Structure formats: C-alpha cells, structure tokens
C-alpha cells in the first residue's frame, strides 16, 4: 500500500478535523485495509476512530437498542438481548465473514463498506465505480451483481447488517459538517441507487457514530444464501419484520441484500401482506411481487428464485 500518516482521534469532531483533504477513518480496517493494499484507496492520512468515547457501548433502554459504531459484529452476534429482541440483526451478524473477521469488524465499518464487485476490486481495472467509463460487469462476469439498479453500475450492497437494520427501521446517527443527522437505512444508501460513483450517501468526512433500533413489539428474521456453508458473501440476503397477531401480519418490512446497490425495500410486497395471514400462498405472492421488476443480467438470473425462496422462508419464520 501507499505510505500514510496515522493519527489517533479522541473525539468525533477532532476526528473530522484530522481527516484533511485525503484522509480515511479507520475502525476495524477489514474493508479499508483491503482497498489500501490494492491501491484502490490511497489515503495520505488514516484517522483511527476506534477510541472514540461511547463508541463501543451497546445499551437497551425503553425498548430501544443503541449500538455505538465501534461495537463489533461478533459483539452483536453474541448479545442475547439482540438475539431475543431483534433476531434479524443477530442472525445477520452471525453470517458476516469468519469468526476472525467478526471479532474485528465494526458496525460502522460494515455499514460503510465499499463495493465487493470483482471488477471494482481488481487492482488493474478502472471501472465505472472507480471513475472509469465502463461498468464491466454489465456485459461481463456478473454472477454476483445486482438484479435491480437505478444507474449503470450494478454493484450490489453487501452489508448484512444494513439489510437487517433496514427491516428493523433503524436510524443511523451520522456526524456531518452541518451537525449530527439521523438517517434511515434507505437514506444512508440512497445515493448509491442513482450515482455509480457512490457507495452510500456519506460525504467525505461524514462519520457514523451510532445506530438505534426500535422494537415496538415486532418480530424479525434474517436469512442469507451463499455458495459455501460459512465465510462467504451472500448471493442474496433477506430480512423481514412485522407485528404478528392471530397469524396475521401488519407493518411488514421486507428487505433484500446483494440484489441492488441499496438494501432493496420491497414495499409493494409488504403492502400486499398488510393484515393478511402468513401462509404458503400469501408469502409466495409477496415473493412474486417483490421480484416482479427484477432485471437480471446474463449470469445472475438465479438470484430471482433464491430471493423468492428467502422471502417466503423468512416470512414464515416470523410465525415460529
């Protein structure tokens, strides 16, 4: 990698100040160091944000789960309160990387991670997302790419936690130049839907500080399908949530990962389910609706049946 300066930030505001022209925040480093080793990121300064106050705390009060940005993925996976109150989040965390990665990777880093498209990560290519002219994946090896996109880049979002947090209606607290902002997960990613250069909606210098997740009596579930049994990216992931009364669902949220540049909220499918009993027939119809507008490429049409299966299975899991 390119040589860089390393500084230790003690407060969020000093972190932003230290960043300079071409700096990057470092927490777990799983994503950033990978980009630096491939010269995809060449920051002249790396600002360590692991030691920011309160950033590693996890609290539950008044039914709201609050996670500091530096809570590790392993920490989320292991927390019994999350497992019982927000199972989709714990399940999503358990499927991230390997035990070693989960022990180091942070919530903030998982949300802010960059594209894993193999064209984007190829050191000798400059794809559209890296400022070039072409999305090579469109006419190339697009097996792992998106089946929905609002822009020429078809790199999918791969954060498991984003998918679960979106289904759980979480808010992401971000420090911006203008001050602190509380974003929905959709807002955190929406720029990536339309702008090929965007990984998410964070501007340079923006720093994720914390995430808060309401509970309001909802059940939730997360499922993903990978090629391998463990330590593999999701081909498709799916998180669902909703209130269940007498077997009927209300306020459902259905969110898909690894199929679009953003966590894909299947709002039509959720609306269809409102007030309906969850059974084979209703979940199958919901899955059909969710995938109706998918536009797969030459090698990723298989994501459609997988997404349908995961939606059906995740919804039925809410009854358990």
């Amino acid at each position, binding site marked *: *990698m390119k*040589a860089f300066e390393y500084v230790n930030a003690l407060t969020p505001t000093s972190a932003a100040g230290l960043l300079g022209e071409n700096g990057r925040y470092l927490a777990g480093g799983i994503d950033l160091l990978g980009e630096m080793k491939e*010269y995809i990121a060449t920051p002249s300064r790396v600002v360590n944000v692991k030691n920011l106050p309160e950033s590693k705390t996890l609290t539950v009060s008044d039914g709201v789960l609050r996670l500091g940005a530096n809570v590790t993925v392993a920490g989320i996976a292991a927390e019994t309160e999350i497992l019982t109150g927000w199972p989709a989040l714990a399940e999503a965390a358990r499927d991230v990387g390997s035990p070693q990665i989960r022990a180091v990777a942070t919530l903030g880093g998982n949300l802010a991670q960059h594209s*894993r498209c*193999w*064209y984007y990560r*190829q*050191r*000798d*290519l400059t794809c559209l997302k890296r400022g070039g002219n072409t999305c*090579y994946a469109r*006419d*190339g*090896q697009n*097996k*792992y790419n998106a089946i929905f996109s609002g822009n020429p880049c078809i790199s999918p979002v791969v954060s498991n936690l984003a998918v679960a947090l979106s289904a759980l209606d979480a808010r992401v607290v971000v420090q911006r130049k203008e001050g602190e902002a509380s974003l929905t997960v959709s807002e955190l990613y929406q720029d990536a839907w339309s702008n090929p250069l965007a990984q998410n909606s964070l501007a340079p210098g923006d720093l994720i500080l914390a995430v808060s997740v309401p509970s309001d009596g909802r059940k939730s579930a997360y499922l993903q*399908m990978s*090629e*391998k*049994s*463990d*330590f*593999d*990216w999701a*081909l498709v992931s799916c998180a669902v949530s909703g209130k269940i009364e007498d077997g009927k669902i209300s306020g459902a949220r259905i969110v898909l990962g690894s199929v679009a540049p953003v966590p894909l909220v299947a709002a039509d499918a959720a609306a269809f389910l409102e007030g309906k009993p969850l059974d084979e027939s209703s979940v199958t119809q919901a899955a059909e609706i969710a995938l109706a507008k998918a536009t*797969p*490429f*030459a*090698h*990723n*049409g*298989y994501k*459609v*049946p*997988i997404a*349908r*299966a*995961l939606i059906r299975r995740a919804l039925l899991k809410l009854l358990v």
Partner: protein
Amino acid sequence: MSDWPKKTEYLGRSTPRVDGPAKVTGAAKYASDVQPEGWLYGMILRSKWPSAVIRSIDLEKAKAVPGIKAAVTVRNGERHVRYYGEELAAVAGVSKQACLDALRLITVEASPQPFVVDVVEAIKPDSARVFADAPNLGEAKIKEEGDIHGAFGKCDVVVEGEFSTQVQLHQALETHGNTIQVETDDACTAWASTQGIFSVRDGLASNLNIPQTRVRVITDYMGGGFGAKFGPGVEGSLAARMSRETGLPVKIMLTRFEESLAVGIRPSSYQRIKLGADKEGKLIAFDLDAFGSAGFASGGSSAGGGGGAGFPAPYIYRVPNVRAKHAGVAINAGSARAFRAPGHPQGSFGMESILDDLAVKLGIDPVEIRLKNDPLELRRKEYEIGREKFDWLQKYRPPGTSPGPIKTGVGVAGATWGGGGRGTKAQATINPDGTVEIRCGTQDLGTGARTVVALVAAEIFGLPPERISARIGDTEFPASGGSGGSTTTASVAPAIFDVCTKALNELQVLSGVADARGANFDAACRKLGMEPVVMQGEWREGLSSSGVGGVQFAEVDVDTETGFIKVKKILVVQDCGLVVNKLTAESQVNGGVIMGLGYALYEQRVMDPQTGVCLNPNFETYKLPGAADVPEIEIVLLDMPERGVIGIGEPVTIPTAAAVANAVANAIGVRVHSLPITPDKVLEALGQIPAGPETASSDLDKSFVVVEDLPAVAGEFTDDVPS
C-alpha cells in the same frame, strides 16, 4: 510377496507426525520463514496486459527508491507477453514497502495486442490468436479402437451428454517462492518451497550457469505444492540473479494474487460424449469429442508442463469400440502445471456422469453397472465393500424421487492411479551412543515424509520413532526424486528399509550382538568403540509396487429452491498396498476428498473476457472448501502388505467430484453438466431461472457446434486403465 516384516511394531499403526509439535509451535522454519543475515525482499512486476509487445522497461526510477538494492528485467529487448500476470521485471530491497514503491515507478512501454481468455471464443475461426502463426485450436489427437461407426447401431441404448470442467488453481497454503543466497564465489544456497529439491538445484545451476555441485537446496518444511512446485520458477531465477548482483540473500515469496496468475492450473475440459451399451448395461461403444486449455502454450501437444489438457478416456472402463478425440486450445492465460492426478478428475467427471445417465436410462443401479463394466477386480471388490458400508441399497432411490424441497441423493465413482516407487538413496548412521540419524534427499510435501523415514527406521531397529533423527530436505543428502505422481512413500520407504537393514547387520557384525534390535540396541552400539556405523542404501524392487483402484460414495442434500448443495457424507474405499502410517494415509484421503469437493462445488478461476484479467485472484472469490463445508469422511483402507508400499496422494482426489455430481443428479432428477456445481447451475438445471438473457452454461452448450469437425492427427492418448 514383499520383504516387509509380517509382524510390525510401528508400521501400519497411527503415529502422529514426528514434526507435528515443531509445526504447530512455529519452530518449523519454512522457506517463507527463513531470514538469513542481510536478506532482501524481492518482488515481481507483472504484465497488466493479457497480450502485448513489450517495447521497453525503464528501471531507473525504481533503482532510485531508498532501500532498493537491485532491479532487473526478466529478459532484455522486445518480447511478447501472452497473459495477464506474466513476469516482466523484479526489484529487491530492504523492505516490502520499498519494493512496492519501486514496482510502481517502473515504466513499461508496450503495444497491447488482441487477446482471448475464453476457451469457447478461442476456438472460433475469427478469434484473436494467442500466437499469430497458429490457430488457437491445436490439432486433435485421436484414439480409435474397434469399429466405432458400426458399434452404435448394435447398442440397445445410447446416451449423449456434454460436460465441462473448470480451471482449478493449486492454491497451496504456502505460496511459491525461495530465499536464495549467491556468494561471491558463486556458491548458492536456496531455501525453497518445493516438492523437488534436486530439480530446483538443477534449475538454479542452469539459470546461474554454475555447476550443480555449487548449489545447495534446503527444504526443511514446505506448505504444499500439489504438482506446481518442481522447479525454481521465474521467481527463483529472479531471486538468484538479484542475490548474485547484490551479494545478499533475496527472498521472493509470491503473493496470493500472483499465485492465481502464473504458477499453474488444472486445465479446463469440454467433453461431448456418446456412450452405448446392450440392455444388460454392458458397454459397447464410446465416442468422445473434447477440447480444453492448458493456458497460453496449450497449442502444443504437451505444452504447459502439465502434459497439456488431455485426459484419459473412457477412463477406467474397457469399451470394445472407442473413439476419443482431444484438442488443446491456447488462450491468453497462465500455463498448466501438473496438478494432483493430472487429467484424471476431468476424465472421471465426464465418464462417470454419462455412465450414470446410461444406468438411469436402463434402470440399472449405478453400483451394479460399474460391477458389470469395471475391468479391475480389486475395484469391483471395493464397490462391494462400499455398497455394504454406505448402506447403498437402502439409500439409493430413483432420481428425483426424494420428497420435499430439500432432496437427498447418492452417487458413486471410481479411480485409478499408478503411484509406484523409484530410485532413492539414503544413508544411515548409528553412533556409539545409540543415536541414529537417517539422511535422505527427499522432501516433505506435507504428506508426512519425515515421519515415514522415522517409522521405517524405527521398525527395523526396534526403537521408538522419536529415537530416530530423520533428516530430509537437503541436496547434500543422498538423492531422491521429486514428490510427484504419488511416488514419495513408495520410493523413500524401501530405501530406508534397505539402508537400515544393512546398518543393523553391520552393527550386529561389529558388535557381536546377534540381535541388536530394541532392548539390545544401546548395548550393541556401545561395543562400536569410536567408529559409528555409516551405511548407504537405496530403493530396490520387492518393497513397493504400483497401481491402485479406489471408489468413493457420496450423499448430498440439494435445496431445490435455492440450489444449495450440502454434502453429508463421503465414503472412501481405497487400496494402497502396505499402510506405512495409518494416520498420515488417512490425512491424504481427507485432503484428497476436500480438494475434490472444491472441484465439485466451489473452485473456479474466473477470467474477464473483456479485459483478459483474472477476477478472483484471492480466497474471497476463489472459493475453497472451509471447515463448515467438509462432510463426514469415512475411510476404508485396504491394507495389503504383500503388495509393498504404494502411494495414494492422487487417486483419492479423483472420483470425489464425479461421485458428488452423480449424487446431485440422483437427488434432483436432472444433471448439472459442468463443474463446479454452484447454486445457479442447479437452479438452471431445474428450470427455475426466469427467461432472460443467455446464461453462461447455455453458451457452453452451443460451443460444441463449432468443434464438429476437429482436424485429427494420429497420436497417443493417455491410457491409464490398469491391465
């Protein structure tokens, strides 16, 4: 009958590796760990173009980077590079960072040329050519026996299928590389990660143009090779040159990225097979049209160092009427090297798949059709043992009839291998204090060779293995061959037997102790006085043999809604002659099966047809099986001491993919014709993918139209059917 003792104290038991503690504590020093005084890091600049004429390479800025001690080009003058990742230049410096910085300051003037990385594209007449003066599709070799044209008419049933196998990478955990020190007097010491210390020695002597006696190669420990680590490689040659230039040791260990581009592959294969039989299932006719690529040099008949892209067909079966045609295809990608059972997994997958299709069509049980057609009695016995152990008759049901969305299936396949022994020399020293040292210039590829040396010596002397100092991995020791072809144990064990038997005799003569073994050993040694016993010995006939069968049974679950395959169990029934160490023999089987699972389900090098680069040069997207993917592996070793020692490193990886593929077809009722069997292909086979643009596998299906009329020349096909 072999000369091995009938009653054994150590042979055939499960003995932990003598160097296990050193490996797990980090005390064992691998080529990557060696740090001789003053050593420099070395790194290689590689082509960013899949094909280009290199006009000039300017090293001046690189040389000026602080800490850089040497910078060299691979070759002077203009040259044509033919794949992404081909070596251009190298630097050596005091830190990795200095080298990284320097590589980025080398300027290369190049004229990019048209290229092709996709085999199916490469055989089209209008494809870009890897070599301007020859088509990418080489002349086909053809094997004909009997009357193929008339034979199909006499068959009661004929099945046809098109199969393809991917490019697999060796992916040894320790990458390729060496630490090399060339002194001012041209004495060269190389710490090499190699499976052939003598071939590295000879390669370096030739590169440096010095006598072989001036080169010493040391491989105390190495982290796997699988056939791709026999020579010093370009990386070794560059390290040697830069060491000579600087007078300092230079270490070049490749990165995982480099490992994926330039140091060997298992060639791909595309096979169209037609198989005919009578209504009893007896095979009558076999017709194969095949091609595959061993990389850029694949146009040649045995290019690529791994013997080209050909494979044995109709594999282990004897069919009276055979036509088998195979052509190599050049593409702009790194060359093949020998890879654990070269050619066999490809041949096994095609033949065992079509054989199961035939069995299904005839309504014959897959084990039964193999018993009818397998010419090797031993393997037929293994099928019978396996059928019983696996509870096959209980588990097998007609294809696709398992209930529910997650379907269970079973499959079976067989393999063959040679694996005999050959010339190896060894020296034994028995000291008056009772210590024993064995020296043998073999190397431990990871199979437990050092433990084999200790165990055989222990058996002869009647001493516990830890009493034996087993020294290997040094070209100053008596010569042995490369660790390839599953020959190491069959070569080394007889040599150790020979030298130890001689040394024991000598000890008994000199000491006057009639039986100096075991409890009498130390007393006998004390009578030696000042003179140790030093004996030379070598491999000889009667202690090893060759030719094994081997069958595997697989049980899988297939999720028909997601395409996910979970392998539940693999049963291995394998003969291997005399079992020297049961524990390491079983480790070989486990490793072979796991590698076979990778071939069956996960592994595949992916090239980008638009840019010619490799898209998965890492363990993130080049998917190797992990612990969670490994099923229960049950091993039945047929211990046959009367046959002497036979290697099993290779046969045990051959049939896994075919057995798994057959199990998947049995589970879902349709066949996936290409490896690896990933969820997308399962869903496609099941007709679950909505109509849309063409998929990868349908591209493959069309490719066979193009090769309808392969030019044919007479040539020999590998024929590994044991007689």
